[in-house]
């Protein structure tokens, strides 16, 4: 009897403990979300926020003095982020997918294992280092900071994620699929492109979305490459802004500090949405 109740208590307390720690991991997420929401929502619902560029510190000061909401927004940052992330995605997708296919198809080749190892290394390279390299390779030859340089840095950061997700998904497709294609007298490249790749679409797309959500908040490499811009800038050869860069700039300007929250909220919502979409797609397109 005694040992029975003792065991029951032990079980129950372990259960409570496990639940507690599991719950604890949710605390930072909700703390961040809550904090950013409370401090940032007011600015975000003002439509100017998405169409106007960063206010000057003087405008902000005047608004602060009279107790109004700071005018202006982060449109310059949004445009920069969209430009750079789009360019990076368009470059990283074909390279990443082809590299991933190569790794999946030639698993055992020596060259493939070297590439796989390098890809893992690349994933571990600190983003600031990627920024420095992009600075030397793109900014210096072009003699200007630019969205182009920024997107080069982001491309490098996206590649490992796309390569590995493509590789893993392609490997998951049963070999019988390839055989089915070949047995119909289809050439190997066509089988890869029109049979295997569509079957792997879900996994690859998820990988791309996760790569996007990973780089969309990157700040360090962009400081060294895109630099920043106070106006909306569509010319990719000119210095450009990004939402993450703006957060850093707002933080450094005492008059603009309250904008940190709304810009963060925007970024957070964007990344969370991407993650949720990625999860849905992964579920829907799961390989049978």
């Amino acid at each position, binding site marked *: 009897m005694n040992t029975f109740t003792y065991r029951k208590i032990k079980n129950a307390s372990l259960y409570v403990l496990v639940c507690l720690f599991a719950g604890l991991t949710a605390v930072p997420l909700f703390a961040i979300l809550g904090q950013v929401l409370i401090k940032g929502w007011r600015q975000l619902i003002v439509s100017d926020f998405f169409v106007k560029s960063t206010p000057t510190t003087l405008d902000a000061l005047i608004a602060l003095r009279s107790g109004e909401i700071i005018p202006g927004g982060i449109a310059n940052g949004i445009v920069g982020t969209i430009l750079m992330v789009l360019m990076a995605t368009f470059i990283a997708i074909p390279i990443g997918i082809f590299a991933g296919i190569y790794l999946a198809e030639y698993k055992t080749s020596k060259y493939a294992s070297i590439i796989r190892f390098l890809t893992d290394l690349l994933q571990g390279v600190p983003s600031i280092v990627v920024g420095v390299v992009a600075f030397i390779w793109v900014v210096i030859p072009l003699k200007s900071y630019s969205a182009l340089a920024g997107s080069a840095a982001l491309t490098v950061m996206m590649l490992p994620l796309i390569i590995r997700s493509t590789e893993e998904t392609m490997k998951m497709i*049963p070999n*019988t*699929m*390839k*055989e*089915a*294609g*070949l*047995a*119909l*007298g*289809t*050439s190997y490249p*066509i*089988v890869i492109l*029109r*049979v295997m790749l*569509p*079957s792997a*679409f879900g996994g690859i797309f998820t990988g791309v979305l996760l790569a996007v959500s990973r780089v969309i908040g990157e700040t360090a490499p962009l400081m060294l490459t895109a630099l920043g811009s106070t106006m909306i800038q569509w010319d990719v050869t000119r210095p450009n802004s990004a939402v993450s860069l703006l957060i850093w700039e707002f933080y450094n300007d005492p008059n603009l500090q309250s904008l940190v929250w709304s810009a963060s909220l925007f970024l957070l919502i964007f990344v969370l949405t991407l993650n949720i979409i990625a999860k849905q797609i992964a579920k829907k397109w799961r*390989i*049978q």
Partner: protein
Amino acid sequence: MENTIKENILTLKDVCISYTPGQNAVNMVTADIQKGLITSIMGPSGCGKSTLLRAINRMHELYPGITITGDIKLNNKDILKMNAIEVRRMAGMVFQRPNPFPTLSIYDNVIAGYTLNGIKKTKDEKDEIVENSLKNVALWDEVKDVLQKKGTFLSGGQQQRLCIARALALKPDILLMDEPTSALDPIATNRIEELLVELKKEVTIVIVTHNMSQAARISDYSMFMYLGDLIEYDTTKKMFTNPQDKRTEEYLTGKFG
């Protein structure tokens, strides 16, 4: 069969296949396979049935390091000297597990041999090919209203018939089947067996099977392989009633295998 003229569609001569040098998975197989008949290949696991079958449409090339010697002639053409793609159009293949393309609809699965190979067909021609192929495998009535659904939406037996239809759509001369019913239940198996007997009119069939009664039921000729050797090759009737080799007899009576 006695009064029909025998015409060989496939001739194997001294065929040796090895995955590792010096070790033949298929050893000196010589056999002529007749047109318009069903020939079954039997034998214990690992005796080289799949290896031999896959060599006939050059699927063995998927394994690096495999070597093959001897002659394999399909319609009097040496398949080892032909373009692999051409060989595979003449020799369709159906696998152990149904493998319809999961991203394609039933319709697109049937027509896949054309679309993937860039063979242009008008909508009417395609409709006709799809309908005929699905009728050939007795699947038309079951799926004619759901042609746009994914192929993987069907039951296992229906999927396998879809795969047969996909292979037939290209009008191959010979259909190679590697244990096509081993993943199916008895009812689905039965349907496929009936189907194969029907299909004989259109296409020569070579079928690998572990199921002796299946071989006895549907095949005209049978091969018995053991450890890479072709031990016996004769009419199914003769093999089952009066096997010439002791090993064949032992296998057929369930002493090993």
